[in-house]
């Protein structure tokens, strides 16, 4: 047991404190994991099995038919084509929205922090205020305006809306990044004869690649997960996955097929989850940077 003459490293002890600590962490982990687990097992069960009311039980056999149905046969109201169309719509909406908003936001952040032309702080203030205001106040006039320029209910239309409403966050993140870049770098480049665009493309953008990745991931998840704007601006033929998912689950006629619902839910969550699990720390960095705005 305990050495009468203390010598060498102190023996590790299992204290009540550390047991409590791990107990808390494990219980918390179960709370966070349970819904994911439930979702996965439900999607692999047959409806008969689900009706047993054993939501946490593992499926008797692995049955992937619900996934197939969710992807290509689930019904929204009377149309039964699955969530596949929504997936491709979301891709078509998200990719250009992310590319454009990140590009414009990077230029904004660079111009607002390192060049500060007249009115910069006003513009930045307007953007930040705009980012806080609930979309509902913009919606109706936006719909009318988009209709006037023939972009309402179209992919370019919803992309434009995402870019506009994405600017505050993206600009903020890039501004905060470029503010931390030494101003001397810009001065050195000016002594070397480079101008606004050359400094941006040849020095600042290559430097900001990690930031571009972080912001892109953040924007990608944000836009992929959007429901409201897609619902209002995309139009029936271009509805994003989230909207179609909600339609599949909540506007079913007849019996609810919970296994198909859960399979569709997983499919919808899959892209952001994949980004999250694959990128790990980058994603964390992004939301931490986005959260600590001042």
């Amino acid at each position, binding site marked *: 047991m305990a050495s009468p003459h203390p010598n060498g490293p102190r023996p590790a002890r299992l204290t009540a404190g550390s047991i409590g600590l791990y107990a808390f962490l494990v219980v*918390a*982990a179960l709370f*966070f994991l349970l819904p994911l687990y439930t979702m996965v097992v439900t999607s692999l069960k047959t409806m008969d099995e*689900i009706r047993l009311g054993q939501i946490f039980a593992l499926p008797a056999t692995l049955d992937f038919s619900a996934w197939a149905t969710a992807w290509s046969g689930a019904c929204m109201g009377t149309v039964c084509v699955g969530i596949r169309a929504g997936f491709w719509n979301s891709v078509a909406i998200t990719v250009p929205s992310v590319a454009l908003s990140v590009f414009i936001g990077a230029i904004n952040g660079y111009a607002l922090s390192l060049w500060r032309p007249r009115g910069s702080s006003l*513009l930045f203030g*307007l953007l930040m205020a705009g980012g806080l205001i609930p979309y509902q106040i913009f919606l109706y006039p936006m719909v009318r305006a988009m209709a006037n320029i023939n972009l309402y209910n179209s992919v370019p239309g919803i992309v434009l809306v995402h870019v506009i409403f994405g600017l505050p966050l993206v600009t903020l993140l890039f501004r905060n990044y470029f503010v931390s870049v030494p101003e001397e770098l810009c001065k050195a480049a000016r002594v070397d004869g480079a101008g606004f665009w050359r400094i941006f493309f040849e020095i600042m953008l290559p430097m900001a690649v990690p930031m571009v990745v972080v912001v892109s991931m953040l924007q990608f998840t944000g836009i992929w*997960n959007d429901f409201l704007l897609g619902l209002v601006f995309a139009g029936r033929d271009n509805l994003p996955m989230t909207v179609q998912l909600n339609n599949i689950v909540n506007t079913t006629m007849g019996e609810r097929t919970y296994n198909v619902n859960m399979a569709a839910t997983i499919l*919808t969550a899959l892209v952001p989850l994949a980004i999250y699990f694959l990128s790990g720390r980058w994603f964390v960095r992004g939301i*931490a940077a986005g959260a600590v705005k001042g």
Partner: protein
Amino acid sequence: MHPKRKRNLAATVALLPTWFAAIVVYIGTMVWSIRLSFTDSTLFPSSNYVGFAQYAKLFSSSKWIASLQNVLVFGVLYVAGCLALGFLLAAALDRKVRFESAFRTIFLYPYAMSFVVTGLIWQWMLNPTFGIQASIRSLGWESFVFDWVVNRDMAIYALVLAGVWQGAGLVMVIALAGMRGIEGEQWKAAQIDGIPVWRIYVSIILPQLGPALAAAGMLLAMGVIKTYDIVVAMTNGGPGSSTEVPAKFIMDNLFGRQNLGLATAGATVLVLGVIAAVAPFRYAMHMRNRPRGAA
């Protein structure tokens, strides 16, 4: 041309699209909406001004009042829940635990998913016929009740549960980043002084995380005012009006009931709500950032 203006020309031009978005889209559409709220517009905008009639109608609508009450209850519990759980998780992870990054990944993943997904998952978990309630009852506890999504009095708490499940990870990340940023020597000093660990977190760490936690709370509070997707997916406002929220009330009147004037009045009230929520925070930041002595 004067050199300064010439030099900044490119920067000014580069910012033009954003100026357009800020002035035309943000300010322009907001002014337009606010103007509509003073008219008797229904399906189409009208220019028949009716003063504050839409606002009077709004605040005599039991559904709107219920929405406000709901969002208040939801907001307070959701923000408090996320902050408390998030801080606890961060403090636990800060104790140099094994598998820290695995735990962190688990606590944060819900934040990567959409509100619609979150709402649907919890709708299913709480399904009284096949969900947790049925499972527990089949274990022999016949009287077990966990029917929050279909119970008028409890449905709003179901939303809180789902919301905290999704948002606590965000607070954890912010709080943990803050804790890691605190000088390690403070820990050493406190250990020399023999201060218990929990006391260090409460009296030394928590006060220093104040600004970070306030920012996180602010972010969550902004989300509360915009709460829409999760309600639509999880309860669609029901049962009855027990989970109606202002953002959904506005959307329903904007696109479902074709009641433009009322919807824009509601949206205007929401904007005022945001200003009321943000102003004290910004003021505090402003006072804090002020150089000392410049009273």
